[in-house]
């Protein structure tokens, strides 16, 4: 029997599905974080050039990847909203923005703390860092735009347009180290292979999955709260066991 995916475009169907998925992703994130930190701090060797400070890589790279990935997913939901006008699309985009902003801030913060001992500076206006900072401002702009528009459905559409316009920044971030001569190093992980020690790479990839699971879990918790906030008068909300006590 074919699975009808469009059924989950309805908040009434997606709400219980999200509730089922949250513990799996939440506990998955905790377990993966424990494994990733063990690999990163107990197994991976000290870097011969950077010493111990390179261990910031285990949160810097995953947060930087997630900051871009979450933006693309948010823009994808925005495109779905503009194309199909589904209620869930706007709610998902709204739920992703704060976590995307958090990941972007973490990437910038950890990058600064890595930059000081290795480059001698917390910040440089090079293409990679500046475009990542623009990403943070885009997230803030989308959150602020939503707050400025009272009617949720209008806010959804305005934020969808802004997120789609801003998606042009993602390839700029990714390719900035190739297109321009930057202080920031080039990609260490490519489709052709990785230019780092195997246990370092393993720790970084496990932590990336941990961040991914964390982001999914918190976005699902937030989207469930948004559904309750927006649809609290609906019959399906009244039928929920946590509401109808």
């Amino acid at each position: 029997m074919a699975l009808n995916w469009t059924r989950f475009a309805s908040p009434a169907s997606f709400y219980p599905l999200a509730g089922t998925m949250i513990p799996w992703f939440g506990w998955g994130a905790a377990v993966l974080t424990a494994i990733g930190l063990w690999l990163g701090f107990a197994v991976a060797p000290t870097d011969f050039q950077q010493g111990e400070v390179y261990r910031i890589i285990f949160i810097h790279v995953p947060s930087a990847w997630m900051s871009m990935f979450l933006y693309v997913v948010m823009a994808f939901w925005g495109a779905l909203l503009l194309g199909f006008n589904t209620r869930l699309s706007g709610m998902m985009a709204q739920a992703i923005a704060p976590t995307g902003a958090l990941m972007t801030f973490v990437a910038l913060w950890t990058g600064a703390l890595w930059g000081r001992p290795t480059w001698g500076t917390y910040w440089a206006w090079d293409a990679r860092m500046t475009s990542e900072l623009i990403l943070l401002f885009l997230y803030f702009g989308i959150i602020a735009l939503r707050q400025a528009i009272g009617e949720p459905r209008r806010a959804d559409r305005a934020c969808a347009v802004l997120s789609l316009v801003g998606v042009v920044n993602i390839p700029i971030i990714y390719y900035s180290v190739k297109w321009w001569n930057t202080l920031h190093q080039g990609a260490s992980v490519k489709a052709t292979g990785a230019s780092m020690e195997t246990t370092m790479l393993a720790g970084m990839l496990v932590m990336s999955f941990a961040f991914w699971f964390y982001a999914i879990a918190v976005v699902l918790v937030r989207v469930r709260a948004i559904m309750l906030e927006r649809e609290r008068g609906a019959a399906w909300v009244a039928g929920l066991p946590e509401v109808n006590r």
Partner: protein
Amino acid sequence: MNHWYFILGAYGVTVLLMLVEVVALRTRRHAAVAAAQASLESPRKS
């Protein structure tokens, strides 16, 4: 300069921000459930 300060600063702030996000979400969820319960009860009172 001891590089462990930079590592602690990076990991500490990241964990702190994630904890703040989780606590804020729990608060928001409880508020959303309470608001939904209130909207369920209000027609009966009127």
